[in-house]
């Protein structure tokens, strides 16, 4: 009889459950430590700080460019640009319009692409899972961090735009697109609403990124995929023959953030936009879960 056989024979006589001592039984705490650790990793990383600096450069450039150039004739350039000289807060809205196409989605794509694939790439994923971190909890915390980053990045662009604009052009009552005037406090509130709306929209793109991030061990690949989806969505949205598709595209309702400047505020577009964002977030978070919860982690 081999050694292995004799050991197996010894076990087969034994039955029943041996309990762990109560002292050794681990107690579980509800805590935000994991999320705070994620946020420290995101905002403490120099690459991401450099990215935030790039995001902030756009409103500064816009403000300075408008300031040094001759007063532009109304009707030229993107929305909000013509109004900047009348109220500095429009710099925030103009910056959001310009960064919506690439910079902000790219920033969210970098963080989302990193979320799972980045940990897999450097191998820390296996050590998180053996701590243990439940896979569902990992995806929930990662998505919460992506959403918070998306909010912070969008608010950051608005804030820098508002500060630069107010410094160079001053504030005061704001003349809306419809010609009505609102107070400075009202104006700040409306810019904030537009910012939060867009932050949530970008977060839903982040959910797509989270899903892609579970498919690969290359974070940069996931980031590129997010940018491609974003650009593709804008392209499809501009082809009139595909009008039946437009309202389902992830980016279609983003421009509705400008509706905060109507009087009264037109909620239809933003409501559809929030529902679309929530739909994309839910579907892709669940897809990430379906993919990741049973995945072999060999990285």
């Amino acid at each position: 009889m081999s050694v292995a056989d004799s050991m197996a024979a010894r076990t087969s006589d034994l039955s029943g459950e041996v309990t762990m001592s109560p002292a050794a039984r681990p107690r579980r705490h509800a805590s935000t430590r994991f999320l705070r650790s994620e946020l420290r990793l995101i905002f403490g990383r120099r690459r991401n700080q450099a990215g935030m600096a790039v995001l902030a450069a756009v409103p500064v450039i816009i403000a300075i460019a408008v300031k040094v150039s001759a007063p532009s004739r109304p009707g030229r350039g993107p929305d909000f640009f013509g109004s900047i000289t009348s109220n500095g807060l429009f710099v925030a809205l103009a910056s959001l319009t310009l960064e919506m196409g690439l910079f902000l989605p790219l920033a969210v794509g970098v963080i989302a692409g990193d979320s799972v694939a980045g940990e897999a790439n450097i191998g820390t994923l296996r050590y998180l899972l053996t701590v243990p971190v439940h896979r569902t909890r990992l995806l929930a915390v990662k998505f919460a961090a992506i959403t918070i980053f998306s909010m912070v990045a969008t608010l950051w662009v608005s804030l820098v735009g508002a500060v630069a604009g107010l410094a160079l052009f001053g504030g005061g009552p704001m003349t809306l697109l419809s010609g009505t005037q609102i107070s400075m406090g009202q104006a700040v509130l409306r810019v904030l609403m537009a910012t939060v709306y867009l932050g949530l929209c970008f977060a839903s793109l982040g959910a797509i990124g989270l899903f892609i991030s579970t498919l690969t061990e290359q974070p940069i690949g996931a980031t590129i995929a997010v940018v491609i989806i974003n650009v593709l969505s804008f392209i499809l949205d501009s082809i009139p023959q595909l009008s039946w598709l437009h309202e389902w595209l992830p980016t279609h309702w983003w421009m509705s953030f400008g509706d905060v400047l109507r009087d009264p505020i037109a909620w239809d577009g933003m409501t559809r936009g929030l529902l679309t964002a929530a739909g994309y977030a839910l579907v892709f978070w669940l897809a990430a879960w379906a993919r990741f919860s049973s995945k072999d982690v060999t990285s």
Partner: protein
Amino acid sequence: MSPEPGDAAVGDFAVGDFAVATQGLTKRFHQQVAVNAVDLLVPRGAVYGFLGPNGSGKTTTIRMLLGLIRPTSGRHRLLGKAMPGHAGDVLPLVGSLVEGPAFHPYLSGRANLARLDSVDRHADPRTTKVRVDGALDRVGLLAAADKRYRAYSLGMRQRLAIAGALLAPRELLVLDEPTNGLDPQGTREVRHLIGSLADDGATVLVSSHLLSEVEQVCTHVGVMHVGRLLTQGPIEEVRAVSEPRARVESERPEGAARVLRELGLTDVTFESGWAVGTLGQVAAEKVVAALVHEGVPVTGFAVERPSLEDLFVSLTGEGFNVSG
């Protein structure tokens, strides 16, 4: 503790006497069988040397044990509880080092351990600093704690990974190749550390492709070869499978060989300068006496206990090289 669902199904093979118990654990990647019906049994309190060449399936087995990958078939228990169903209860008591260190390069060693601790829902945040520093101290890394991980040498990285496994009190430590990248001094320290962990009552499963490195600290061994567990058990039982041999150094090796054969030694061979034979039931001291009596000049005599490496060769007919 309340009875657990699934016990009836698994109760026939393993109980809490074993820190690790697997039954028919198998992993198939596409066409290749990486781990083939492995029945691993690690008694509580043992230091179990999980041996095998690179590519023999050790790491895949360890990944299955920890729930990182799903077995194609088979089942297993850690600390008496079925995995992966009870991973949330069991893994906090298991410290692990899997396939080398992995940390965030731009964080310091200390910040990396704090990060690991912060995701652990069982860890008390009030004691994090004490436990992190304690773990760093135990692996001799306290002086380099605030250096970025990127600047660590391979040996320091390996030490940090071991420190990560020691952040909380553990009942089981699964250490995959813990001496990789360490210098001889570091290797000795890790052996010493394993010994002291075992003295504290922990069970240690340590894998290695260097037999001689772990041979000295293990109470039990299991030997893997191309995905199969060839043998396992207490180290003296495993060693007893192959018998000790007598080696005689002499300027008349053919004479020495004749004496050995006459005494009843088997597998006797000789070359210039020495003769060797399997002792069997023959007492070693009788051999020396007979050699002297026959007038064979003896310049050296040794009884060779077969090393695990010799055992491995005898089990597989192959050397301890990379498995295909």
